[in-house]
């Protein structure tokens, strides 16, 4: 039995929790925007585009991508372990690495707007 603290676990758990809270609070409304408001024509294309190009919006979106991805990485990896697929689920770098790569792509995309 191990008695060594896992040094990365607190950070990953805080990111999982932060992402879980952010998505719990915001995701349903965001889905309503892209899934209802856009098809229903409640929001004009130009207005949405200028909102997305706003620097503050870009910063928020990159932050949300970061939190959402790390929430997914942590939760999904442990779900795989719980599904008896521990051999895949315990390849931690695969999941957190994907989350980090996705965040970098989002940041680069935001900077190029």
């Amino acid at each position: 039995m191990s008695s060594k603290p896992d040094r990365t676990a607190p950070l990953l758990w805080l990111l999982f929790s932060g992402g879980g809270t952010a998505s719990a609070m915001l995701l349903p409304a965001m889905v309503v925007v892209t899934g209802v408001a856009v098809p229903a024509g409640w929001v004009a294309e130009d207005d949405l585009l200028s909102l997305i190009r706003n620097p503050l919006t870009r910063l928020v979106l990159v932050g949300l991508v970061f939190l959402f991805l790390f929430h997914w990485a942590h939760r999904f990896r442990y779900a795989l372990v719980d599904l008896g697929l521990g051999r895949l689920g315990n390849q931690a770098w695969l999941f957190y690495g994907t989350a980090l790569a996705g965040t970098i792509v989002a940041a680069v995309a935001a900077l190029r707007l």
Partner: protein
Amino acid sequence: MTDQTVLEVYRYLPDEETESRFQSYEIAYQDDWVVLDALNYVKAEVDSTLSFRWSCRMGVCGSCGMMVNGEPKLTCETFVKDYDTETIKIEPLAHFPVIRDLVINMDDFMEKLPTVSPWLIPDEERPVEDGESLQTPAQVAHYKRFSMCINCMLCYSACPVYGLDSSFTGPAVLALAERYNLDSRDGGKKERAGVVTSHEGIWECTYVGECTEVCPKGVDPAGAIQMLKLSYSLDWAKSLVMPKGGGSA
């Protein structure tokens, strides 16, 4: 009042068999019988080869835990009349090795129990002359519910994380760590961090939450583990900001 039912009991006799099997006992039971009474009746009157553990018969000792129709239960407080199924299936506690019939090997749990130092570790030694360490009712309230554990291990049988990988420290032991961490007389949080925050400790828990559902004493181990995660994570964050002053609070 008496009624009829069939107990479908898990049997494993290691000296005679290599596999487990189920054996049915049709019995007449009294209204006030618990499952343990029914098993004791079978052992006394029908089949003396049946083995199971029990002691106090009043929900305190934690010895008579078994799976009743697939749910971990203290059989001394589970009434036969509450089951309207045709048979009542009785198996040894899930996730533990079976020694014989309904008797499981609890060594793993017993070895884990002392690893979280489940006793008061005061910040500084107090001489006996100083008398009792007094606590206010509010200070007791902070840890009271986590102190009710009777080590019956029902929570381990309800926990799929432990069922898949028994290296997980598990619900009752981690709840006990939080019970002492929350005690105003205790200063051992840092000392417990080793086992509690190791890879096999709190981080393995994915909050299935069933440990809390089955606990006969209302301990809420799932909640205790969440509190431990938050508390040790905040300590970690504080230690980044204040490398020396951070840590145990």
